[in-house]
């Protein structure tokens, strides 16, 4: 059913820190810088923020701590436990909090020293955490990292549909081409299929090193308020058309009891968000598809119905996801090449795309003038972007989605 709240709320500010591997700073300092950048972007003051939402895995700073630094009096805040696919969900919760009258302007942030302190990949301090509960069924067998916990879905999908390492590598190649036009990207160099398949194995047969995203130190922020209030702010408003998730597969299925295990949560999230948005796939101009690994992209394009099940590899191979083609994906380079932010940077990028203000190498991008020359070191603004979609991923069994409009 069509959402009664479509286009009634806006993203009015976006901000991030530099993407580094070694920030030398606290998650508190990183968070404040990202929030400050987003507040400035919106034309607001720190004290205008009266709602905050964040997500973390025990690796970050709380909103109440930041309120001191911001001099803010908060009317609403929650710090949620969660990883990928939380970005989209928290945008939905921000709308809910404002709609309920609890607050007016919400800053959503994620701050993580994801390279120098707590690595999502499971090395360092996380490797020595005592094991209890569901982890007893997997960790004693040597499963610890995200890709290891997803690999049963990936391998099974390879068997069912004949996916090859080269098919997966094409995801990385596309995103690296995009990152080469992104001054912020951690990995700007373009790579080839051979580069990916010749990088060392992380998990056979589904992930080489270059199939995996880049653990990064960073903070990011997205500010949400009503479309009514957005009219008076600095930027061209970007309207939140619809949001859905975090949603799960039937039974949650964190241990692969139900099937098909190669079908991921987007299969259930997708129909709902297109209903809420009253739009179809043909309306989507740019996608942001959570690329923790090249494989998550293949599976999500299938699950969300941008192609048939088993045809994710062909969707990528067709070139449709490339800048200059019909529906570019992860134009910033995403998690594979720009930075690993737990999903935030792909919503930020789509916001920039909708504003026509992508921060690429075009000399006059700050005035919205772009060359549309997508060769290396050039432009990454897509022409005439009206509608974007984000597809968030936490695991094969959990995901979320967001549709934004100009």
């Amino acid at each position, binding site marked *: 059913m069509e959402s009664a709240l479509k286009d009634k709320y806006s993203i009015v500010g976006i901000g991030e820190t530099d993407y580094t591997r070694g920030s030398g700073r606290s998650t508190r300092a990183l968070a404040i810088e990202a929030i400050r950048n987003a507040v400035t972007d919106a034309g607001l003051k720190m004290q205008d923020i009266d709602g905050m939402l964040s997500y973390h895995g025990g690796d970050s700073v709380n909103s109440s701590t930041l309120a001191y630094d911001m001099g803010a009096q908060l009317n609403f805040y929650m710090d949620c436990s969660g990883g990928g696919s939380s970005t989209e969900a928290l945008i939905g919760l921000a709308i809910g909090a404002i709609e309920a009258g609890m607050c007016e302007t919400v800053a959503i942030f994620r701050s993580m020293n994801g390279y120098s302190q707590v690595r999502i990949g499971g090395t360092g301090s996380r490797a020595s955490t005592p094991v209890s*509960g569901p982890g007893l069924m997997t*960790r*004693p067998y*040597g499963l610890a990292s995200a890709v290891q916990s997803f690999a049963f879905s990936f391998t099974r999908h390879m068997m069912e549909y004949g996916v090859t390492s080269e098919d997966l590598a094409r995801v990385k190649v596309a995103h690296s081409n995009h990152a080469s036009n992104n001054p912020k990207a951690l990995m700007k160099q373009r790579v080839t299929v051979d580069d990916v398949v010749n990088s060392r194995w992380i*998990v056979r*047969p589904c992930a080489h090193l270059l199939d995996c995203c880049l653990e990064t130190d960073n903070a990011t922020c997205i500010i949400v308020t009503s479309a009514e209030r957005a009219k008076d702010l600095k930027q061209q408003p970007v309207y939140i058309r619809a949001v859905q998730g975090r949603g799960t597969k039937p*039974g949650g299925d964190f241990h692969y009891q*139900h099937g098909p295990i190669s079908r991921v949560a987007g299969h259930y999230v997708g129909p709902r968000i297109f209903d809420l948005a009253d739009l179809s796939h043909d309306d989507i101009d740019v996608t942001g598809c959570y690329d923790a690994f090249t494989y998550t992209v293949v599976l999500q394009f299938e699950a969300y119905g941008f192609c048939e099940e088993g045809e994710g590899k062909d969707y990528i191979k067709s070139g449709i996801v490339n800048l200059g083609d019909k529906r570019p994906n992860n134009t910033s380079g995403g998690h594979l090449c720009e930075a690993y932010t737990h999903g935030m940077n792909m919503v930020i990028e789509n916001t920039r795309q909708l504003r026509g203000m992508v921060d690429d190498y075009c000399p006059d991008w700050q005035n919205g003038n772009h060359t549309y020359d997508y060769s290396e070191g050039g432009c990454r603004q897509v022409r005439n972007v009206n509608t974007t979609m984000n597809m968030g991923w936490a695991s094969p069994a959990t995901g979320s989605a967001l549709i934004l409009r100009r």
Partner: protein
Amino acid sequence: MPVYEYKDLLLNIIEQDSEYFGYFEAAKEHKLVVKKCLDCDLLRGEPGASCPWCSSMRSEWHEVSGKGTIYSYQIIPHAILPGFRDWTPYPVVLVELDEQSGKPLEHDGLRITANLLDENMNPEHEENVAIGKRVNVVFQDMENGLTLPQFTLSDEEPAGAIWRYPNT
């Protein structure tokens, strides 16, 4: 003490962790068990606190044959956990047990994660790991009293085609 050290991991297998405690207790007696619902009689591979089919909280541990088929696999050449480095490259398999395969829904099954080990309880050679191969449960007893259910290749012929990724 219900805390076991295994490959530099600390495993907290305590009685109050009621969904998992019995699984490891049964393993000490070399029994592979799953939860059985006492109301609808369906088995479940991930133990859980209630029956996903009828919501009953009444269940018992139920011994299964330990025979199954490799449903998916992965080979880990790059260990994240330091204690597994001397095992690399090691296989981790998702085994679908023979009991209740394809029930109650077509793609459902009792699926257990474990390592695939050889007759000496070392990681099975990678080229022998394939989806569709038949396996049997084995029990890896440690000196500290911990027993882990594991799997080993069976002599049985696979029921259908087997698959592993080519050239790996």
